[in-house]
């Protein structure tokens, strides 16, 4: 039983990381119909920015955090202008390849600037964790779970109760209609990219103290987050969160009770089952028939 609870906690924790990255995928997908293969690199870049500020320059943690987020906003904006915007009228394939190019570029530019050594980023809290009964709660995982919950609540409030959120939603549903209604579509997409880069960045900064900061930290999480996105349904924010957490739990329990070496396979096996039997994801809306 104690093992079960411990696995559950870790599963939810790692799942929350997938969920945060998946959220970035979903937002960009909804706005542009494109899967951003560089989403994982957003997390990696943000973690390196944190290392530069908090470790190398020894700035206060909160200030480093703000600087890193500022940097991510800029990355998101440049990414939109350089990688997505010029290709917005093309089909999804060239855009996917373009984001792949961007991911190679971001990873290797960081490598060229910072060198290949993995780095250590301290966590937010002095205490590494608590022993609660039979379960050890890692404080960084607790933080990640908390942030995920808060972000989901924020997201809900933002999209349902603010004008900007509603404009963004209108844009993601029907660009032509949105522009007819006088919504500046290009600006909305810009905001989406910046917001996604920020969320990806937050995920990277939060997970860095656990997984360390390395060039490939982003790509390994992103692939899982990707799977989470499908399990949850590609067009749906709540789905991404549930998908991410579900994946984290499946993986952790699969590793404990079935096989550790095939751990990464469970995610994709579940995914194939979903695609065959429930392609719309857990929460996906029914796809309407259309001619």
């Amino acid at each position: 039983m104690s093992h079960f609870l411990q696995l559950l906690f870790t599963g939810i924790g790692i799942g929350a990381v997938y969920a945060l990255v998946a959220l970035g995928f979903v937002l960009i997908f909804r706005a542009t119909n494109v899967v951003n293969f560089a989403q994982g690199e957003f997390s990696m870049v943000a973690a390196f920015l944190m290392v530069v500020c908090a470790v190398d320059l020894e700035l206060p943690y909160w200030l480093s955090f703000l600087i890193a987020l500022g940097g991510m906003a800029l990355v998101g904006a440049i990414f939109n202008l350089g990688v997505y915007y010029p290709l917005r009228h093309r089909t999804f394939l060239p855009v996917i390849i373009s984001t792949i190019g961007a991911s190679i570029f971001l990873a290797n530019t960081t490598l060229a600037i910072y060198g290949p050594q993995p780095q250590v980023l301290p966590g937010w809290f002095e205490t590494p964790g608590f022993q609660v009964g039979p379960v050890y709660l890692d404080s960084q995982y607790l933080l990640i779970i908390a942030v995920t919950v808060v972000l989901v609540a924020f997201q809900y409030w933002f999209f349902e109760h603010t004008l900007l959120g509603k404009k963004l939603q209108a844009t993601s549903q029907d660009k032509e209609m949105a522009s007819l209604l006088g919504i500046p579509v290009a600006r909305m997409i810009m905001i989406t990219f910046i917001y996604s880069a920020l969320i990806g960045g937050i995920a990277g900064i939060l997970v860095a103290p656990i997984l360390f900061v390395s060039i490939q930290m982003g790509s390994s999480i992103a692939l899982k987050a990707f799977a989470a996105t499908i399990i949850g349904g590609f067009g749906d924010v709540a789905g991404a969160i549930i998908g991410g957490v579900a994946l984290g739990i499946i993986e952790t329990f699969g590793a404990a009770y079935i096989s550790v070496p095939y751990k990464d396979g469970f995610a994709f096996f579940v995914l194939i089952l979903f695609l065959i039997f429930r392609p719309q994801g857990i929460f996906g809306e029914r796809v309407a028939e259309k001619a």
Partner: protein
Amino acid sequence: MTITRRGFSAALAAGVAMPAVLREALGQSNTLKVGMVLPASGPAADSGKYALTGAKIALERVNKAGGVLSRQVELITEDDQTTNPGAVLAFSKLAAQPDIVAFIGSIRSTQNHAMAPDILKTAKPVCFGGTDPQLTKLGNPWLFRFRPNDSYSGRVIAAYGAETLAKKNWAIVHSTDAFGTSGGKALTDSLGKFGAKVVIDQGYPNQSQDFTAVVLAIKQSGADVIGSYFTFENDLGIFARQLRQLGVTVPWVGSPSITTATAIKLAGPALYGTFGVADYAEESSPEAKEFAGLYRKAASTEPDNFGSWTYDAIGVLCAAINKAGSTDPNKIRDAILATKGYKGAEGEYNFDQYGDGLHGYNIVRNEKGKVIFDKHIEFDD
């Protein structure tokens, strides 16, 4: 600035042609060339940097002492991108340069496997650091190993844990890649000879984000000692931290990766009190100490085995060429195989018929982040 399509294609064409032009312009020089395949990009790029540093300081020593066959020695490097096809291309690119007399291969066994057919074709000595015991038994006469192979690391881990620490119930944790699998197997094989048994053998895939399941399994198995073969330090760091968090405190004897500077930096206190086998330990010999001094001067990081084996490889190779008195590959090969009692940073090199130079390991201890030399275990066979 607006880029037109035509302008872009012109620039593309120019970009395509430029490297060839540059290569022509660079020309030739009268140095003795040693080729080196190393990861400059990809997940192992950091170890590539250390390997290069080690090779460079050895080179500097050799050149200061008058070079080889009265020529200065030059290192030509190619990036293997930490992939097998990358290694094959990098090696064949070097092999295509006829003035390169010998090569430094990879520290990764699978890459050496991938390059082996080309090495056989090139028919020039290749010094490598991969520890899969198979590599020197392929019947490929051009492969020379500058680190003790895994049959030794397995035996040393088993000997230390089962005899010195007197622990009989083992948990083995290993990566599922070539290095980890062969290491885990070697350790399992050796444990039987010491009357110890494996209570749990747990493989994990590289770049795992979480080891909770592995740690809990170890906890449940009742193991009183852990033997490990980790490939990447970040996996090792995550495992170490979760091991301590979940309250596992049994002794831990790890493969060389547990003693590297990166691992110690990443895992911090979680590795305090662990043991590791190390082909390189600073305190193990005066030569090792000398290397440490030179290495610290050249790089800002702590010396470890990634640098020491290339340092020794260059040293042995240059000595062998001098002894051979020629750059004829067969003569160099004979001279390397005849090398006995060469004192390098990693230990004493006595090459056997297969091309294995080292036959023992150091045991080191992590004392509050400092690597302390414990003892050296050497085998005759």
